[in-house]
């Protein structure tokens, strides 16, 4: 090995010491000849004869030199250097083309790599927990809902039954009101975790201690750990934060730990209602109402495999546990499956993954179109040099020697393009991270080694792709071809035209795919935002209120409080209506609940069970939000704890749960803990509402209850402005009114609904913009490609057109000639592209159902746009063809 290296160093040194070594060898050869001549003369030859014999004995001096050089240096490296120098000269000779080529490549590779850096940042970059490979997430799959969370009691059973395969921890995303450390009470995002949560993740606190097992229990859980960000923001990074007391949801709790930055906890946890990272961790302390039920819980389970245990082994255990739970508690667990996923694989969720791959794929298509353009360019250039190639071949150049300069040129172009593409990647990573991340899940798209490797690989594949066509063309030619034919009048023989046409077909197909892809996506998102939501977001202003104030009281007192607040709000100029609900209608949060159909007996719970979203609302909610009451009556002030318990349901639920019956007067019930069932009488039917989510939950049923009958801690305040334009101006008056009404109320995020929706749909907007950018680039590149090919063809056929015109052809005939050929190509490309677009639309629809319908017009429009571009790209050069002066054209011939 060392010997090989030594020899390589020797040879490398020889490469850089060429002139000296050459001179040295010349002298040695001269010596050789001299000695041989002297010998020959001594043997009795004449001087001429002696010289001749000496030369014959030595052999051809130049060949010997070459042999010597080859043995001495690194011939392949020297050849490569020569080829690169040569192609550098070639590229510098036509700087315009070179700049366009490099810029195209830089954009193509850059965009592709930028998209990959997203995938890298979202999925490939490992979570920062130690031995992350051992970590997993446990999902609960039921026919109602896939990848759901767990009920508290199930969690305890699962944890107890799996101690010998894994450590199991739980987390619930929560919101709590934290009393002033310095000022107004605020609602903060809280992670309610089991005591071992940090141990399972192997995260140690920065200061203080983690939670103790006994603190997991309700009323013994008056301790919190604060996040690094919250510590810096509220405690100014002071160490004495540990040990101090704060009030959390009106309880006095002790800060026992300050955590290090834990961005990845926010990446793995789901269901955060707040667009901010967890500020506080507290032992879970399950409430009474969270116990004794086996369905509809919201405990997220994370686990770490014990050493030597595989994921499959753990899954087998969880299957056993699920079967056991189904046997012991068939209510709620009957069809439940417990499924393990590696934690890393959960980071990029289903539809995000589809979108990310879509973006990488489509940006790759842009690059492919650019490749086709460059292939065409190089092919044309090679054809122009056909004579030169033939002469070289005739003089004995091997195929490899002919192709090498082309490959060198490609490598040089892509190398430069790739270097320039890094500017694109670095320039966009921050913007992309800003647009795709949000404060609760910060994303990091900054390029790392993997991204650079991807850029290099892309560049290499690109170079190979567009070097292939010209290299193949050159290698197939026999030396006599070009020498026989006159290259000036050539448009290329049939096979060359074939490649070029197929390149154009490919470009058109890809461009159509990009156009249609962007179209389908944009239409889908538009549908998502503008389809009938069943409610009107525009005039609304929302705020989140935490009602846990003992001065407000419970039940009827709450209702009175809200009624009073509503009076004050209605007094603000421009306010039309106001209401409260337990969640904002923009997104369904953790308010799904299991219900039962009435079976004739309040104790008999054997009726059909179903999952529904549960909304707890004030009577004015439906008018405020704009939900239509279809039948029956609205809630009113007569619905209170002492009256009959009532509910309104959505129309889909009415149609499916009570087919052919009148839903009004029917009863549904839910389990209220401690063996009690609450039965609600359905008094009305309202229109379905839809959240603004691309992937709506499987659950389509809605149940509304009056807030006077069901108390909820954290409420969403909804205020309807008289006109949508007034909404932003109402934010401040609303804030002031609420604070004046009760200064102890923690209020959070007072925002116009439009802003909230914008926050939620920002990612979609960004994807729209990116797809439009891809489609625009792809289309213009394809157009440019067609233009270049048509222009070149016409330039080469000038003589032919001249003859045709001299013989009486009209401008129309010439145009027909040019269009006929290219229209066919464009149509063929569009046809292939339509098939591709259909496949793409199906792929999108499989991830997000909103993309499934109404794609026909989009496809038609895309084909139209493409043909228009083709037409323009043909028309510009074709017009020049019609202006050919026959006399001039024939004279140059």
């Amino acid at each position, binding site marked *: 090995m060392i010997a090989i290296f*030594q020899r390589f160093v020797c040879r490398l040194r020889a490469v850089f010491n060429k002139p000296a070594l050459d001179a040295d060898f010349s002298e040695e050869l001269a010596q050789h000849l001299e*000695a041989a001549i002297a010998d020959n003369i001594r043997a009795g030859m004449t001087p001429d004869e002696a010289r001749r014999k000496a030369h014959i*004995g030595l052999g051809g*001096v130049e060949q010997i030199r070459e042999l010597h050089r*080859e043995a001495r240096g690194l011939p392949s490296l020297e050849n490569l250097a020569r080829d690169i120098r040569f192609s550098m000269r070639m590229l510098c000779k036509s700087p315009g083309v070179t700049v366009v080529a490099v810029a195209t490549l830089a954009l193509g590779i850059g965009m592709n790599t930028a998209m990959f850096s997203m995938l890298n940042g979202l999925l490939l970059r490992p979570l920062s927990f130690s031995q992350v490979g051992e970590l997993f997430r446990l999902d609960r799959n039921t026919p109602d809902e896939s990848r759901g969370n767990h009920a508290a009691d199930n969690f305890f059973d699962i944890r107890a039954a799996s101690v010998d395969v894994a450590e199991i921890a739980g987390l619930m995303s929560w919101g709590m009101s934290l009393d002033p450390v310095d000022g107004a009470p605020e609602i903060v995002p809280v992670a309610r975790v089991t005591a071992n949560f940090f141990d399972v993740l192997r995260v140690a606190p920065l200061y203080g201690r983690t939670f103790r097992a006994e603190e997991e229990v309700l009323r013994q859980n008056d301790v919190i750990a604060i996040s690094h960000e919250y510590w810096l923001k509220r405690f100014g990074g002071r160490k004495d934060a540990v040990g101090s007391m704060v009030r959390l949801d009106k309880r006095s709790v002790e800060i026992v730990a300050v955590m290090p930055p834990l961005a990845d906890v926010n990446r793995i946890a789901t269901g955060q209602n707040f667009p901010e990272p967890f500020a506080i961790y507290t032992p879970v302390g399950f409430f009474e109402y969270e116990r004794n039920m086996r369905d509809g819980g919201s405990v997220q389970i994370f686990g770490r495999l014990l050493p030597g245990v595989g994921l499959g082994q753990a899954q087998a255990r969880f299957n056993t546990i699920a079967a056991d739970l189904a046997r012991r508690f068939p209510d709620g667990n009957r069809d439940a499956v417990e499924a393990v996923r590696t934690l890393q694989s959960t980071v990029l969720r289903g539809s995000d993954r589809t979108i990310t791959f879509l973006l990488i794929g489509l940006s790759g298509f842009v690059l492919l179109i650019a490749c086709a353009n460059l292939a065409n360019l190089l092919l044309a250039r090679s054809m122009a040099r056909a004579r030169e190639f033939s002469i070289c071949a005739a003089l004995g150049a091997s195929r490899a020697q002919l192709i090498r300069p082309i490959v060198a040129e490609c490598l040089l172009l892509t190398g430069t393009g790739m270097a320039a593409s890094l500017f694109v990647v670095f320039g966009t990573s921050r913007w992309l991270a800003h647009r795709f991340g949000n404060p609760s899940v910060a994303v990091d798209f900054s390029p790392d080694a993997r991204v650079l490797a991807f850029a290099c690989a892309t560049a290499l594949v690109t170079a190979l792709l567009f070097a292939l066509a010209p290299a193949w063309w050159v290698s197939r030619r026999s030396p006599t071809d070009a020498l026989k034919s006159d290259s000036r009048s050539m448009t290329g023989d049939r096979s060359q035209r074939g490649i070029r046409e197929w390149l154009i077909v490919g470009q058109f197909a890809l461009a159509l795919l990009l156009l249609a892809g962007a179209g389908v996506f944009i239409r889908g998102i538009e549908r998502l935002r503008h389809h009938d939501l069943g409610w009107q977001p525009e005039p609304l202003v929302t705020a989140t209120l935490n009602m846990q104030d003992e001065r407000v009281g419970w039940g009827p007192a709450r209702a009175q409080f809200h009624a009073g607040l509503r009076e004050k709000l209605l007094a603000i100029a421009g306010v039309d209506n106001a209401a409260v609900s337990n969640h904002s209608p923009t997104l369904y949060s953790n308010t799904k609940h299991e219900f039962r159909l009435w079976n004739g007996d309040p104790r008999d719970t054997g009726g059909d069970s179903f999952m529904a979203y549960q909304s707890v609302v004030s009577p004015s909610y439906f008018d405020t939000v704009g939900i239509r009451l279809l039948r029956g009556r609205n809630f009113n002030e007569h619905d209170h704890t002492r009256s009959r318990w009532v509910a309104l349901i959505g129309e889909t639920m009415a149609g499916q749960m009570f087919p052919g019956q009148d839903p009004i007067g029917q009863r549904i019930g839910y389990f209220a803990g401690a063996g009690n069932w609450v039965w609600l009488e359905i008094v009305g039917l309202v229109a379905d509402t839809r959240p603004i989510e691309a992937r709506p939950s499987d659950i389509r049923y809605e149940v509304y209850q009056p807030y006077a009958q069901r108390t909820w801690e954290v409420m969403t305040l909804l205020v309807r402005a008289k006109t949508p334009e007034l909404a932003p101006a109402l934010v401040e008056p609303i804030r002031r009114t609420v604070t004046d009404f009760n200064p102890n109320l923690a209020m959070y995020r007072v925002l116009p609904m439009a802003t909230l929706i914008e926050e939620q749909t920002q990612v979609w907007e960004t994807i729209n913009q990116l797809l439009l950018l891809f489609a625009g680039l792809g289309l213009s590149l394809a157009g440019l490609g067609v233009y270049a090919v048509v222009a070149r063809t016409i330039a080469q056929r000038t003589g032919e057109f001249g003859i045709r015109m001299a013989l009486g052809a009209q401008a129309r005939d010439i145009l027909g000639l040019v269009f006929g050929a290219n229209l066919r190509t464009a149509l063929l490309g569009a046809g292939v592209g339509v098939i591709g677009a259909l496949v793409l639309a199906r792929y999108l629809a499989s991830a997000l159902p909103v993309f499934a319908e109404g794609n026909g017009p989009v496809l038609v429009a895309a084909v139209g746009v493409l043909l228009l571009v083709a037409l323009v790209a043909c028309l510009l050069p074709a017009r020049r063809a019609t202006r050919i002066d026959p006399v001039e054209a024939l004279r140059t011939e």
Partner: protein
Amino acid sequence: MPKEKLDLLQGTLDLFVLQTLATMGAMHGYGIARRIEQVGADALMLNQGTIYAALVRLQQGKWIDAEWGTSDNNRKAKYYEITARGRKRLIAETENWQRVSGVVHRILGAPAGELPS
């Protein structure tokens, strides 16, 4: 000419050069070429010039050393000399060659139908 055969010849030529330098001491290129011709091995060289590629290869492997010196007739000439490393290689290669040629001889020389022992 098939490539394998050339390689065999090349290697053999290197071996001859080493053997020549080992027996004759320091020599210049022309001398080595003449010597190889004299012992009748010129069939291995296409012409005298090919010796120089072999000399470069041997130098790279540090099996021989080269130095400019003065020839018998007082002219400057490049002299090649075998190194200790070269001698070791020569012994090893010679043994190897003898073993191989022994086997080849036995196989080719064996009467038809009889297996070599």
